[in-house]
C-alpha cells in the first residue's frame, strides 16, 4: 500500500506549521464540528466583508485538533479562502467535495484547489475522506450561519 500518496510533504508542512491557525476577532459566525468516529474537532470563525455572493472572506480563523490530514486540510483551506468571495469559493468547494468522493478515480485540478491537491490522495482511503472534508463542512456551516444571522 502506497502511503506516500496520502502523506505528502505538503501535508506535513501544513500539519507542523499551520497557516492562519488560532481563533481571532472579529468574526460574524463561529461553528464547532466534530468527527464522532475519531474525535477530531475544529472550531472555525468566519468574518465576511460585503453582502451576498460578492461578500469576501476577510478572515477565517480556526482551532483544529486531529490527524495530520484534518489539520493540514484546515490550514490549506484557510489559505485558499481568505480574500476570496463567496461566489469564487463555491466551485472550489464543489470540486474538492467531488474529488474527495471519487475514491481516487479523479485527480484534483491544481488551478482550482491549489495546495489542496496534496490532500486528494486521501480519496483512496474512505476513512480519511471525512478528515479532509471536516474543515470544508465547517466553513459551509459558518457561511450558512452568517446568512441566518444576517436575516434576523
Amino acid at each position, binding site marked *: 500500500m502506497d502511503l506516500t500518496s496520502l502523506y505528502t510533504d505538503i501535508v506535513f508542512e501544513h500539519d507542523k506549521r499551520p497557516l492562519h491557525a488560532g481563533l481571532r476577532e472579529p468574526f460574524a459566525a463561529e461553528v464547532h464540528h*466534530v468527527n*464522532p*468516529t*475519531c474525535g477530531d474537532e475544529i472550531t472555525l470563525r468566519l468574518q465576511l466583508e460585503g453582502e451576498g455572493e460578492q461578500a469576501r472572506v476577510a478572515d477565517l480563523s480556526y482551532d483544529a485538533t486531529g490527524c495530520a490530514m484534518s489539520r493540514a486540510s484546515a490550514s490549506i483551506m484557510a489559505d485558499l479562502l481568505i480574500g476570496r468571495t463567496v461566489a469564487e469559493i463555491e466551485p472550489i468547494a464543489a470540486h474538492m467535495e467531488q474529488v474527495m468522493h471519487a475514491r481516487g478515480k479523479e485527480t484534483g485540478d491544481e488551478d482550482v484547489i491549489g495546495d489542496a491537491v496534496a490532500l486528494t490522495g486521501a480519496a483512496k*482511503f*474512505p*476513512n480519511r475522506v471525512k478528515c479532509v472534508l471536516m474543515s470544508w463542512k465547517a466553513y459551509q456551516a459558518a457561511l450558512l450561519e452568517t446568512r441566518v444571522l444576517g436575516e434576523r
Partner: protein
Amino acid sequence: MDEQTTRGYDVEAVRADFPILQRRLDEDTPLIYLDSGATSQRPRQVIDAEVDFLTRDNAAVKRGAHRLAEAATDAYEGARETIARFIGAPSAEELVFTKNATEALNLVAYSLGQGEASTPEHLRVGPGDEILVTEMEHHANLVPWQELARRTGATLRWIPLADDFTLDLTDLDSLLTERTKVLAVSHQSNVLGTLTPIRRLAEAAHAVGALVVLDACQSVPHMPIDLATLGVDFAAFSGHKMLGPTGIGVLWGRAELLAAMPPFLTGGSMIEVVTMEGTTFAEPPARFEAGTPMVSQAVGLAAACDYLGALGMENVAAHERALTTRAIEGLRELPGVRVIGPDAGPDRAGAVAFDLAGRHPHDVGQVLDSRGVEVRVGHHCAWPLHRRYGLHGTTRASFSVYTTEAEVDALVEGMGAVIDFFARFDR
C-alpha cells in the same frame, strides 16, 4: 404449476434455491411450509452472502480506520443502499436498521414520547394528544402505542373493523381530529389479508397534521412498494419475512422527521460528543443505531432484496395472488370451514385464515402437521381482531415465492382429512 411456468414464473427453479424445502419432517412426510407470513425461508443466495461476508470482510463497522473495517463498512452501507432502492426510499440515509419491525415501531413510539422541550411540537406526544390505531393491528403496532399513551398521558383510539373484514371508516372524521398526533396502521393484515386504503388514510391524517406510521411487515415481502409515493411518514418491516435473516428490521422515516427526533437507544456510534455531564447525538441514521449493528444480517437482507428484485415483485405478487385465490376457493367448498377475511380480489393479499366450526385451531393444526402441512394456529398476535369476530383463534396459511399450487391443494385436502378425523369422534 405448469400454469405458473407458462406465465414465466418458474416456481420449481425458485424452490431449488431453498435448501430447507428438500427436508422431510419424517420419513414419509415432505415439508409443506405454509407459514411464510410468520417467517419465510432463506434462499442459498442469502445464506451465501452472509457467509462470504463473514469469511472475507468481517470487522467492526464505522469505528475502525483499517482496511478490513472499511470493507465491512462498505458492505453495511452498500446494503442500506440496496434495501433503500428496493422499497423506493428517496435516500439510504432514511433507513435505520433495527433488530426487527417491533423494535422499529417501538423506536418511533419511544422517540415521540421523550418529552424534550427542544423537540418540535409535531414530534412530541403528551397529555391531551391522541394516537389512532386500528382494531386489526398486530400486537407490534398496538402495544407500543398503548404504552406511549400510558407514559405520556395521551389517549389511544382505534378504527374498528367492519363485518366484511375491512376497516370501518364510517366514523373516521370523529376519530381523526386535530388532537390526533399519530395514525399507526398496517398495510396488510397478517390475519385477514385485507389491504388498508393507505393513501386515503394518510391524506386524511396529514390533513389534521398527524404523522402516519405504516406497519409494512406483510406488504414489503409480497408486493412492489414505492415508499416515496405511499404518502406515509414512517414504515417498518422485518428481514426474516422477506427471505432475509432474523435479527434485522428496518425503520424508514422521512429525512426531515428523523433529523428532528430525539434518540431512543443510546450508546456507542450514535453520539457526537460525550462528556460525563452530557452527550450530543449524531445525525440520522447513526443517531438511531446504538451499539454494534447487525452487519452480516444487513448484507443478507440486501441479498434477499436482490433475489426478490430479480424475480420481480410484480411477478411475486401475481404468483401469490393466484395461490390465495386457489386456497380461498378450495377451502370454501369444505363443510364447516369459514375463511376469515375478504373474498379474493384486488383489496386483499395472501394470508388465508379460516375457522372450522366446533374445532379449536390448535387441534386443526395438529392434524395438518401430521400430514406435513405447516400452518400457524392461534391469534397470530392479533388478539383484538379475533375477539372482534368472536373467535379464540384461527388457522392461517400464508405463502411466499416458493409456494406451489400443489401445496395449496395439500392444504385443502388436509382440511378434508381434518374434518374426517374429528368426525370419527363425533358419534
